């Protein structure tokens, strides 16, 4: 059975490439390590080396073919003792895979992953000096990235800091071996230095979601000048209204959170300056009221969006939120369902948290942290009374929203919650 030559993945993010030219002709003897062909990716032209010995029996994808999918069959090598007749059968079998989507399982799966081996061999062929700046080398080392995977953008193709940082942000990490879809796949974190006498531990590799959370929230906390405003809001009227509304129909079951979403939406309508982002050149005022709602999932935090929340009634918000939350937990949100939004709500009330300050979800200007509604002693008309009170803390990016605007928004929000009938207007 001839050995199949498959289109290699020369970088973890490569999904397809161009077969620039074959350096061996049909009938040429091939040794492991010989350069078979030149493959072009969007980043660079790389040499594709053979990992097997034999005779190049058939070229199936000719020179200059564009857009060859990774793992597509591009040629066949005859092993010792095989003759050309073997090609016909193999070619037919391989044809199934022709033009197919890059599939990790290939007819040669019994062999130890030749694609990977080829990619690695090419990338780190001994004697090939990789030009990279000292800073690029260090950042790559710390991030566990093989420099050989990267294309340099500096003078004479030297790898510079920018190239490594871009690779990190696009999710390239050490195991270049990963499938062609590596960008989306969870990648292993660089092994942390093991302290000799430290406590025992196990390591959970970072998922790409966890990395994004880490990066964005670190960036937010470190670069966004946060300030915090807290208000206590009485919930009794809202709870009564909720019970009343929920008692009228089985078609919906409104949660306190649904009321909060609507109140935030109407509050932003009243104080549009709080529905904004900071950019280097301008304050971006959102014309739509799109509200991100933080949802905890097993993989991490995600913020599906209720779009045009100001134009939706409580039942509509409630229904949409339930659907989005299920999708979020199942990891089925589409990008447009969680990317964007002008304002975020994070509610930890169901866990009994009284009050907390959330980290801003960049590039948004504000995030509202909602605590639990609980019975508290309040003073009303010079006498102690019991009321159900919830504390809400607004975290604000001071570059976009000043204290007075934040306070004005919170006042509007508080009024809507405390007089919930006004929400129905």
């Amino acid at each position, binding site marked *: 059975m001839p050995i199949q030559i498959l289109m290699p993945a020369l970088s973890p993010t490569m999904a397809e490439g161009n077969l620039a030219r074959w350096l061996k002709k049909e009938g040429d003897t091939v040794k492991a390590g010989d350069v078979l062909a030149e493959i072009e990716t969007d980043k660079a032209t790389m040499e594709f080396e053979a990992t097997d010995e034999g005779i190049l029996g058939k070229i199936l994808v000719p020179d200059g073919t564009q857009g060859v999918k990774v793992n597509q069959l591009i040629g066949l090598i005859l092993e010792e003792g095989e003759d050309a007749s073997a090609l016909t059968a193999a070619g037919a079998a391989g044809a199934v895979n022709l033009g197919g989507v890059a599939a990790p399982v290939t007819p040669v799966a019994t062999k130890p992953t030749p694609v990977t081996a080829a990619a690695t061999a090419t990338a780190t062929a001994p004697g090939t000096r990789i030009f990279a*700046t*000292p*800073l*690029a080398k*260090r*950042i790559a080392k*710390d991030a566990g990235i093989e420099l050989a995977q990267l294309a340099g*953008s*500096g*003078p*004479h193709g030297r790898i*510079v*800091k920018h190239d490594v940082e871009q690779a990190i942000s696009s999710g390239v990490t050490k195991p270049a071996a990963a499938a062609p879809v590596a960008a989306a796949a969870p990648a292993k974190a660089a092994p942390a230095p093991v302290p000799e006498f430290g406590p025992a531990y196990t390591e959970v590799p970072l998922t790409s979601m966890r990395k994004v959370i880490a990066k964005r929230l*670190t*960036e937010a906390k*470190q*670069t966004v000048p946060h300030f915090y405003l807290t208000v206590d809001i009485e919930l009794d009227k809202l709870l009564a209204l909720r019970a009343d509304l929920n008692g009228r129909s089985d078609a919906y079951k409104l949660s306190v959170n649904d009321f909060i979403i609507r109140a935030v939406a109407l509050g932003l309508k009243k104080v549009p300056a709080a529905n904004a982002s900071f950019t280097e050149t301008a304050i971006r005022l959102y014309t739509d009221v799109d509200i991100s709602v933080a949802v905890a999932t097993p993989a991490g935090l995600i913020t599906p969006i209720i779009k045009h929340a100001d134009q939706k009634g409580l039942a509509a918000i409630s229904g949409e939120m339930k659907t989005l939350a299920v999708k979020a937990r199942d990891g089925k949100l589409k990008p447009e369902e969680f990317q964007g939004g002008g304002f975020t709500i994070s509610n930890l009330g169901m866990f009994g948290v009284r009050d907390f300050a959330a980290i801003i979800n960049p590039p948004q200007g504000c995030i509202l942290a909602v605590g639990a509604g609980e019975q508290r002693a309040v003073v009303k008309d010079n006498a102690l009374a019991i009321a159900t009170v919830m504390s809400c803390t607004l975290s604000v990016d001071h570059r976009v929203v000043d204290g007075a605007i934040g306070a004005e928004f919170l006042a509007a929000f508080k009024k809507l919650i405390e007089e919930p009938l006004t929400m129905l207007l």
Partner: protein
Amino acid sequence: MSQTSFDLIIIGSGPGGYVAAIRAAQLGLKTAVVEREHLGGICLNWGCIPTKALLRSSDIYRNMQHAGAYGLAVQGASFDLSKIVARSRGVAAQLQSGVKHLLKKNKVTVFDGHAMLAGPGKVAVTKDGKPVADLTAKNIILATGARARVIPGMEPDSKLVWTYKEALVPDTMPKRLLVVGSGAIGIEFASFFNALGAETTVVEVMDRVLPVEDAEISAMARKSFEKQGMKIITSASVTKLDKSANEVTVTVEAGGKTQAITVDRVILAVGIVGNVENLGLEGTKVVVEKTHVVVNQWLETGEPGVYAIGDIAGAPWLAHKASHEGVIVVERIAGVADVHPLNTRNIPGCTYCHPQVASVGLTEAKAKEKGYAVKVGRFPFIGNGKAIALGETEGMIKTVFDAKTGELLGAHMIGAEVTELIQGYMVAKTLETTEADLMHAVFPHPTLSEMMHESVLDAYGRAIHF
């Protein structure tokens, strides 16, 4: 009329324009430069170079006064202001003819006159209102530079209230001088006149002198200026100028208090505005914001084929930034591979006051503000053998590293010859070296540059000589 069709027309022949023109010629572009005043622009005629000539005179004069410290005797040290000025003008003239020669050698066509955009790909040149030439080119670079900013109510009058232009050719040595603004321009003139004996006051609106520099450097500079007899008022603004025949009473407001200071001359150095007028920008897609042309990272304006470089394209207002931008634009037009946008963090700044100040990259405060965990190194001149031998023990070299990656984020220097030292860190930054490479580098002994090594070592707790 001669040849009027070019590959590239450059309006303005300052350090942005003439460098762009020479690079364009090297790359085979048929290039024209239009200059309304003098080749070399402000930098060479009324800025960087002639001020350095003046400051050289005041530095030597200062050294003469301290001759005793070196075992030398100088009697009756004095100066002739008109000769100092004449030397400065001579230096400018020499360089201007140098630029003229370079442009000629590179076969760049120079038009003497005022240029205006006259439709897509068209430039009209006039001289004293009369048409000189109508030029066409696919690419046009605006490199018209900038001029001193004027505050309403405090307009310079060329006599009592000067800008850099009058201050460069003073007809008289003011006994009492007030400088408004303590940026590079203001502080250099303050240094010059103070060294020559003027009773000098500097008024700065920010809370420190040289406000763009690292706060520690600013503080050291202020202390040194005050030791030299300069009076410095910060967090202050000038609210009124009352002129009489040969003096000006300046009302300065600081910390809620108002004081009146009477001086012979006032120098205004409160920033610059771009030369965006009468360029025919109206009706084009070129956007002007706060007197500067808006450009992207490739220096492209909103109008296809029209670029802007240097001061007219915004801060930092430095000759070397203009030159580099010019080269970037030209190389892109010529299709040179591997052209990179200018990394604004890698533009050094130098101020030639006494002591000199030079810096590149982020200040310590800026680095922290950007969220870096930093390692900071400092090394004082007093710890350096060469500095002691020179009798220049005042000053410091400060380095700021990213603690995580060892990237040199910024370097800040004050002291003798630091404007010549900063390039070492510049090369290091451009090559993206880390602290390790700087530590491995062998610095020659005995030099001031050893302090650059020591400052890096100090950032990692390893300084040897302090």
